[in-house]
């Protein structure tokens, strides 16, 4: 069951990489958040512990509901809701994504990380999500799309954190989720400020400061 959720997380990354519409990207990153919450419940072989249920519920609430609402709120007054000319086009993004996936599969299989349950797919999906997220941040001009990339990257790290859960602590996992919450909250406020000051949320135009 855990593998099904992981494969779905992987597919949502491709969906986000291919999406030009802000609303669709926010929607799919929310779906990914819910899938991660469900993965947390199915990650432990003997059924989820109380701590894991706590992590799962927090992840679904934050990643699946609160973050998307914050982002939708930040872009409610934005006129242009599509990213028409990213630095890297959508077909090229998918191809680069495929290359990233091959790299993540190879690296995940060879890094020999002692993931809980010995499932190499955890490391592979984590690495691919981090790659997809960083690529989104670099290749997109719209500030909202960069935040979606940041969330995808955070989701990858979250998968890896869950894979090592028995060796880390519940407090740290929750602390990281809350930290991410504050980050997205503040990024949302900043996007709102950018929209008011510039009349758009295109980070490509934020290039007055040079040298």
């Amino acid at each position, binding site marked *: 069951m855990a593998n099904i959720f992981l494969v779905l997380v992987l597919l949502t990354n491709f969906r986000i990489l291919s999406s030009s519409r802000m609303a669709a990207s926010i929607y799919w990153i929310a779906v990914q958040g819910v899938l991660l919450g469900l993965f947390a419940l199915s990650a432990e072989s003997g059924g989820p512990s109380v701590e894991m249920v706590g992590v799962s519920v927090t992840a679904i609430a934050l990643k699946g509901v609160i973050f998307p609402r914050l982002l939708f709120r930040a872009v409610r007054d934005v006129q242009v809701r599509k990213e028409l000319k990213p630095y890297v086009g959508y077909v090229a993004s998918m191809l680069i994504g495929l290359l990233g996936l091959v790299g993540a599969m190879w690296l995940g299989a060879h890094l020999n990380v002692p993931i809980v349950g010995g499932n190499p797919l955890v490391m592979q999906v984590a690495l691919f999500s981090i790659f997809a997220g960083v690529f989104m941040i670099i290749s997109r001009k719209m500030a909202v799309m960069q935040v979606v990339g*940041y969330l995808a990257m955070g989701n990858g790290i979250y998968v890896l954190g869950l894979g090592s859960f028995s060796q*880390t602590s519940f407090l740290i996992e929750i602390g990281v989720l809350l930290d991410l919450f504050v980050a997205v909250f503040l990024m949302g406020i900043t996007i709102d400020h950018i929209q008011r000051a510039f009349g758009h949320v295109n980070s490509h135009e934020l290039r007055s400061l040079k040298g």
Partner: protein
Amino acid sequence: MTLWTLLLIPVATGILCLIPSSEKGVLRMMIAGVTAAGAAGGYAIYRVLSGGPVYAWSNWLFLDALSAYHLGVMLLVYILSSFFAWLYFGVELEEKNFHLSHAKMFCGLWCAALAAMTLIMVSNNIGIMWIGVEATTLLTAFLIRIHLSRYVLEAMWKYMIICSVGIAFAFMGTILFVLAMPASAVSSNDALLWTHLVREADKLSPALVKAAYIFLLVGYGTKAGLAPMHNWLPDAHSKAPAPVSALFSGFMLNASLYCIMRYLPVVDKATGGSGWPLTFLMGFGALSIIIAAAFILFQRDLKRLLAYHSVEHLGIITLGLGLGGIGTFGALFHTLNHSLCKTLSFFAAGRLGQIFGTQDMHRMKGGMKLSRVWGIGILASLLALIGIAPFSLFMSEFQILKAAVDGGHILIVVIFLLGTASVFVGALAHAIPLAWGQPPEDVEKAEGGVMDYALVMIPLVILLVLGVWMPSELNQVLQQASSILKG
């Protein structure tokens, strides 16, 4: 209780800063809180120096010589910058450009950032330490935007995105570090404790430790402003209010570098004690010096110039750490020297910026004629930054250079000398007209009061004294901190 006090005082002060009904009342509250935190910190440092490491909260919090030294530097920078904030915002208050909402926002975030940075210093848990760095980023991002403008938003966005990605990389490294430990060797409670990791370092998987270290170095290195991940730094430093720039450059960068330092003895031991992690530090350090030197030559904006000096000096510190031996001692000593000097230079840049109404050095000429105290401040701090004797920066840079020569690192010696020579020429070309040029006719003179003189003279006197004489207590704490880094 001592360590908890260090965290609770700034948190409580941050909340109390929301109560006063006047701008000056809020600033007074903030200064009182920071000073109290300074006193509590002084007591904690005294306990560490006299009786060894202090522990709290099931060993999740601790203070040893390395963290006590950094805590001392941080509190010094914080106290000086808090008094400067009184002066700086006092001018804005007279110009009706600083309101109660600004004061509450600034002081609340200022105190919260102090708590977050203290958390980094007192954390024995590498996960909590990471949370402290992330919290620092988020809190200080909004310190940049006290006065909102298009440029400020641009600087803030770059800072948030680039540093958040960097810190996410650091978290990835933290997780890989934990995964490098065999499950049988740890219980879940102490898996993330630094003291435990140091003890059990030889049981860690070398391959995973190496992978983790790369992520940590890139991640924390981004926040420390090491090239080539430094792009956010000149924008954030130049667009933030001067007290915030002083804090950014004076200590926030060092807080991230401190996190890298913590991993050095563990990684070195886990990878066979061959000095594997140090090579990367030398590379990042040398690259930072070269890139900063190139940009310093062509700067027009005074605060951007100082920001590139930060890239250079953080590079010098990183290089010293990478060289090891006396280089480690020199790097730690340089941390204090650079923090003090950069705090002073941003104070002077901030006040001169207010006097000239610009940060453009083509217009900022004859600072000495307009304000003797801040003219001296900018000139002396620029001279110290380029390594002129007898300022203590000369001594620490000399120690690092000696470590490079002793270790036979000829290429590093050449890069260091070329980089610092370029910076010397570039910064001096800016400093002379800045101090003695012909000031614009439309700019009025602004002489300083007692506090202006105190804020210039205190750091300057310390830098001069440390250049010719090192107190035995400072030598002792630097030796102890160096030995912690050497494992």
